[in-house]
């Protein structure tokens, strides 16, 4: 049952699928080391305060425990990422609830938990800040000079003078809540660490080299003394981008002091309360249009709550800022954005990375602008969509052959949008359960923003053995999304080989080059392209030393695996190791100005129109999504089942974001850090999601592919809330729309 080449475009079996379904795959908690101890973390009970004392209850046999505090850190006390502002263990001041202060290690898990509960931190409270508005108002300075981690200003044209030409001006303010990633496997790490061998960690993670980068200064070791190995990872969604560095650091500190391996695994409640979540946001829009609905001026003020330390907030802010004006063309734009500090655990990466927040605001707002112009929401968008040759807010000229009106038509045809919109409008008047249909149009840039990819300069290697097996070496991680399968397809097609002959080397910083983090919808498009190029390099090497095939052998015939094996063996005998590497180089013509925040923000965008149909019980405020159509242009679909899975999963997550997932805060602490009261949708709450792809190959992606991992997170929330507005007339401006929120809004409507 071997799939015929080309594999790209086919739903080949998942590379690691068999191991996962048979239970052979080993996740970090499946790993057991001789003499291993367990670790636990004692965390700050307060949002902000000075640590006065740490009390250890006398009833615990402390001599059996390994106890680590900030004083035990051999190097710099920080989790190095963009800045070095976040301590690995708080020493004098705590800046958020759940901030790690003391680490405990013991061979008995149960005793460890009792001990954790027997450590009491005595703190002197300091005034804290919990909201975006208080932080902006500098009610208390809690970070830097002004509570601002980062700000951007994007300008195009001249907004100030454009208002005079606007015939209609519409303003609005929108808010989005935090969201927990809820990967199936909670975070966890195992470390072996001692001054002789250095530090080695195994664990659940997206970015081995981020962990590596954090451990080096923490221990003051040279880079080769730190080794990070990814264990099988049960999902990430961004939630295993930055925090694994913290957990790895803690496990390693305990192991270093104890002289034994240490396993540190979070349970669900600790994972939810202490690790990163999606940044809450507030967006203000002021939009000027002509009477016939042409955009004249867009002014956007976008603010995200970064929590207590900088972590990745500047990058999240950047993506949110660039996506804030959507796939529209407007001559005059000003986007001002800020990431501000509050005394909550740092917010972090989560699928979409700032874009779901700003896209929600824009796509809700544009329904209001359409209404103000007396236009249907689709007609307003049609008049303002960007076309090939047009420019986005960041002054990026679109060279792709994008056709948003066509995507919209297809989405409308598949969802029967127009007929339903008319019918619902007619029938809703007398109905208790009212129906609505709404949509959102959006884009999502793949890869790091601006000069990010150039700066990362990712490397991939491909090597062959004398037995004719090929290994792909990259630090990109399989986290359930299918990276290993996609790399296999790309390498196999490039080399004309059976996919069974391709191995993907396990990400291990001692063995694989740094292909960058597994984030930002970049793995297939950017790293996949490097896999393709490196594989091509390998092939060329073989061809030039006599491999039959396209150029070397009989006309146009790809080599057989026997020929390939023979050529590899021959080459290795003569020259030694057979390996090709490839380093990222930006596509020609890409320019980005980091100062002005203008230029080619992303090499490519995926484009999409999503349509949601809802029913709303106006008496009980129950909302159901009845149907969902997702149409997107993604360059080239490499694996139809995985690609569809990405979209379906993202839409399901988007439904949770829109309707259910409500992080309840009390003084900076998530008080519903349990799945029994943090409500996420289950399969029973998710409608059939109908996924349609359009293909428009991107020349600089492997086989023409663009990134799609984050895209599906952006559209569902505004599409659903737009549908709720059609159903009920309630113009809701914040998510999640829980029954209480809807009730408030509806009472407003009927009053």
């Amino acid at each position, binding site marked *: 049952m071997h799939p015929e080449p080309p594999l790209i475009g086919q739903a080949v079996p998942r590379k690691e699928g068999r191991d996962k379904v048979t239970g052979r795959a080993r996740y970090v908690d499946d790993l057991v080391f001789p003499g291993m101890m367990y670790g636990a973390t004692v965390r700050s009970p307060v949002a902000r305060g000075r640590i006065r004392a740490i009390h250890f209850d006398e009833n615990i046999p402390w001599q059996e425990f390994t106890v680590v505090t900030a004083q035990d850190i051999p190097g710099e006390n920080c989790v190095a990422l963009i800045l070095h502002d976040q301590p690995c263990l708080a020493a004098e001041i705590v800046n958020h609830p759940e901030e790690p202060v003391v680490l405990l290690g013991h061979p008995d898990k149960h005793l460890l938990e009792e001990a954790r509960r027997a450590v009491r931190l005595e703190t002197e409270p300091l005034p804290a800040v919990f909201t975006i508005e208080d932080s902006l108002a500098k009610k208390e300075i809690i970070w830097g000079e002004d509570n601002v981690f980062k700000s951007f200003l994007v300008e195009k044209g001249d907004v100030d003078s454009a208002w005079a030409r606007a015939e209609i001006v519409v303003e609005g303010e929108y808010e989005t809540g935090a969201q927990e990633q809820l990967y199936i496997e909670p975070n966890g790490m195992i470390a072996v660490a001692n001054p002789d061998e250095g530090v080695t960690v195994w664990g659940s993670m997206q970015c081995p080299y981020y962990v590596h980068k954090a451990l080096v200064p923490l221990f003051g070791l040279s880079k080769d003394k730190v080794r990070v190995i990814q264990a099988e990872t049960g999902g990430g969604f961004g939630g295993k981008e930055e925090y694994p560095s913290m957990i790895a650091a803690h496990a390693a500190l305990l192991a270093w002091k104890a002289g034994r391996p240490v396993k540190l695994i979070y349970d669900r409640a600790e994972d939810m309360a202490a690790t990163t979540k999606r940044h809450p946001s507030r967006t203000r829009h002021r939009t000027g249009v002509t009477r016939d609905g042409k955009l004249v001026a867009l002014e956007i003020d976008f603010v995200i709550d970064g929590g207590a330390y900088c972590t990745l907030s500047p990058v999240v802010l950047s993506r949110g800022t660039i996506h804030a004006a959507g796939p529209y063309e407007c001559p005059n734009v000003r986007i001002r954005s800020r990431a501000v500090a509050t005394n909550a655990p740092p917010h972090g990466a989560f699928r979409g990375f700032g874009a779901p927040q700003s896209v929600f605001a824009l796509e809700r707002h544009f329904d209001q602008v359409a209404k103000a112009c007396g236009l249907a929401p689709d007609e307003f968008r049609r008049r303002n969509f960007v076309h090939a040759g047009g420019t986005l807010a960041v002054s990026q000229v679109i060279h792709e052959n994008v056709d948003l009106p066509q995507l919209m038509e297809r989405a409308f045809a598949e969802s029967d949008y127009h007929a339903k919109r008319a019918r619902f409008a007619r029938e809703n008047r007398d109905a208790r359960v009212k129906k609505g249909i709404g949509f959102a149009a959006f884009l999502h840039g793949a890869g790091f923003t601006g000069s990010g990819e150039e700066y990362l300069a990712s490397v991939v290697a491909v090597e062959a053995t004398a037995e004719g097996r090929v290994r792909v070496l990259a630090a990109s991680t399989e986290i359930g999304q299918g990276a290993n399968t996609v790399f296999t397809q790309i390498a196999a097609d490039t080399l004309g080989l059976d996919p069974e002959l391709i191995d993907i080397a396990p990400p291990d910083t001692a063995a694989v080059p740094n292909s960058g983090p597994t984030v930002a919808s970049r793995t297939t498009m950017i790293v996949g392209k490097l896999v393709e190029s490196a594989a091509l390099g390998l092939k060329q090497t073989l061809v030039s030393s006599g491999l039959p095939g396209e150029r070397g052998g009989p006309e146009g015939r790809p080599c057989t695996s026997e020929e390939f094996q023979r050529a590899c063996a021959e080459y290795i005998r003569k020259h030694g190791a057979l390996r090709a590497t490839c380093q990222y180089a930006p596509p020609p013509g890409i320019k980005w100005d980091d100062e002005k925040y203008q230029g080619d923000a992303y090499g490519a965008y995926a484009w999409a129109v999503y349509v949601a149909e809802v029913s709303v019980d106006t008496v009980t405020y129950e909302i159901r999504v009845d149907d969902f159509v997702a149409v997107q242009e993604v360059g080239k679909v490499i694996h139809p089942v995985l690609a569809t899975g990405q979209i379906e999963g993202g839409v399901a997550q988007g439904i949770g974001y829109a309707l259910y997932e409500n992080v309840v805060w009390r003084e900076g602490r998530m008080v519903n850090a349990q799945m029994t009261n943090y409500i996420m*949708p289950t399969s*029973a709450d998710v409608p059939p999601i109908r996924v349609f792809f359009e293909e428009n190959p991107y020349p600089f992606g492997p086989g023409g592919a663009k990134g799609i991992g984050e895209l599906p997170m952006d559209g569902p929330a505004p599409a659903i809330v737009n549908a709720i507005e059609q159903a009920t007339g309630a113009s809701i401006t914040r998510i999640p729309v829980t029954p209480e929120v809807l*009730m408030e809004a509806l009472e407003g409507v009927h009053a």
Partner: protein
Amino acid sequence: MNVFEYANPTTTKEAAGLLAAQWGEAEILAGGTDLLSLMKNYVATPKRVVSLRGIKELSGITSSASGLRIGAMVTLQELHDHKAVHDDYHSLAHAAGSVPSPQIRNLGTVGGDLCQRPRCWYFRNGFGLLAKDEKGQPLVPAGDNRYHAIFGHPGGSPGAYYVHPSSLAPALITFGARVKVAGPKGEREIPLASFFATPKREGERENVLMPNEIVTEIILAAASKGMLTATYEVRQKEALDWPLATASVALRMSGDKVKSARIVLGHVAPVPWPAHEAEKLLAGQTITEDSAAKAGEAAVRGAKALSGNKYKVQLARVAVKRALLEAAAHGKEGMQHG
């Protein structure tokens, strides 16, 4: 989870002997769907866990002329699938079948459903059932109370604000169910309507059981002919969660008129909440949109919303109305079929 001793008795008597005279020292384990999460979160830290799995006398449903006897260890799925329950106690079968997920229905037991601990955030986060701060002030009225009680709470003073989590209890009470309880001193029988109680002091529980008593069975009187029943639940989402409000109704009919009605609300008060005013209002009435809506109004007349749960008053009102209309619709179907 703390370290504990596990006991696996084979008789009720033995089990009762293994329990402690103080709450908290030993816990009964039935299906474990609730107890295990309580223990994992250190809300329950028993020194001994007494499993009821090995006790044969607690299993099975027997149906006789005098009614039904439901063993405490009967699973929710068995209850839902039982023919006599399905035919004669429709609203109960519906309530059992609506407890989410096959896994929970296959493990969770009837005894466990009635004795499961409240889902209150404060309780589950270690603030206790009465959830007071250091000064003895109640946390719920000033805090987040979106899922808390709209009936039967004391207002501003310390006391219980949680809602009782069982959705079987309201349906069972409309049928006049009784619980049989076994302890070291022997057995006693209690009407289910007076089984639930609001604790006065922290450390007390949500029912009248002694710390060393076990619920052994539920007894239902024979169903009366032509009784119309329904349970209506309002949930925030489809699966894996408790309802926000439920109403179970049982109507004895005389022709198309209600002779007498039993209406009990769930998930709105620290105990299953009978709607006596609504019951009285319906006597002698036919069930119409209008009478059902009026009954809904009457049912919530004494409701006292907290700062964040006004919406629950609306949900309770609607649940009563829709349960009545459903029950009446069953009556019509019944007439058409036979």
